[in-house]
């Protein structure tokens, strides 16, 4: 589980890679060609980024004729969402304790 989370965090830590992922979440399935137009880096570089995203299961690919189509898999963001909500839970719990303290305190 930790390794899965590490892969997701690492994959999204790179701004270019994150941009590629965001592009797919916004505009759906795309070819490497189309992604390269938006990414501002070379096609081999985009392919490498896609490999890292695939390893984190953030991207799925499908072949059609000579073209490969890539699409985002947002459900793979789950470890990130868990991490965020844990931090939220930490503070909400502290808020509860703060309110308990205020009840006990003199005016």
């Amino acid at each position: 589980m930790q390794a899965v989370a590490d892969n997701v965090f690492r994959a999204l830590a790179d701004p270019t890679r994150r941009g590629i992922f965001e592009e797919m979440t916004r505009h759906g399935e795309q070819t490497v060609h189309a992604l390269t137009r938006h990414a501002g880096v070379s096609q081999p570089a985009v392919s490498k980024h896609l490999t890292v995203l695939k390893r984190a299961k953030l991207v799925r690919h499908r072949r059609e004729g000579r073209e490969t189509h890539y699409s985002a898999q947002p459900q793979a963001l789950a470890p990130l969402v868990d991490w965020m909500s844990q931090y939220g839970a930490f503070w909400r719990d502290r808020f509860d304790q703060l309110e308990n303290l205020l009840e006990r305190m003199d005016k």
Partner: protein
Amino acid sequence: MTTTAQTHTLVIDREMAHPPEKVWRALTQGPLIEQWLMANDFQPVVGHRFSFRATPVPGWNGVIDSEVLVVEPYSRLAYSWGTMGMESVVTWTLTPTESGTHVRMEQSGFPSQEGPNYKGAKYGWQKFIGNLERVVGEED
């Protein structure tokens, strides 16, 4: 250090049925802070460096290194929150209401190393996290 709305990552709001002066005491007196947050050597003095100490767990020594950044009595308090190589800022804002106090906590987080990608990465994360809930929601 400054924080802007562009950097915040976590905001928690709550109405509390107690006056701001009382909430302020709970936020700024060390022995009271310890009762709801963590052991600490906090002083309500801008520039004061202190630490919060929790029970260590595997992979974390339980120490949060902090510095007081803002002290505006009964309205605003901010301190840095550094742990495990991550630096963030915790800001408390108290607003009086008819029945007590509106308490807001904002934690703005970002890596402490200000590398060349820092600004871009920060902007990207902000946008990304903003989209996160929507994207995950759409998947169901």
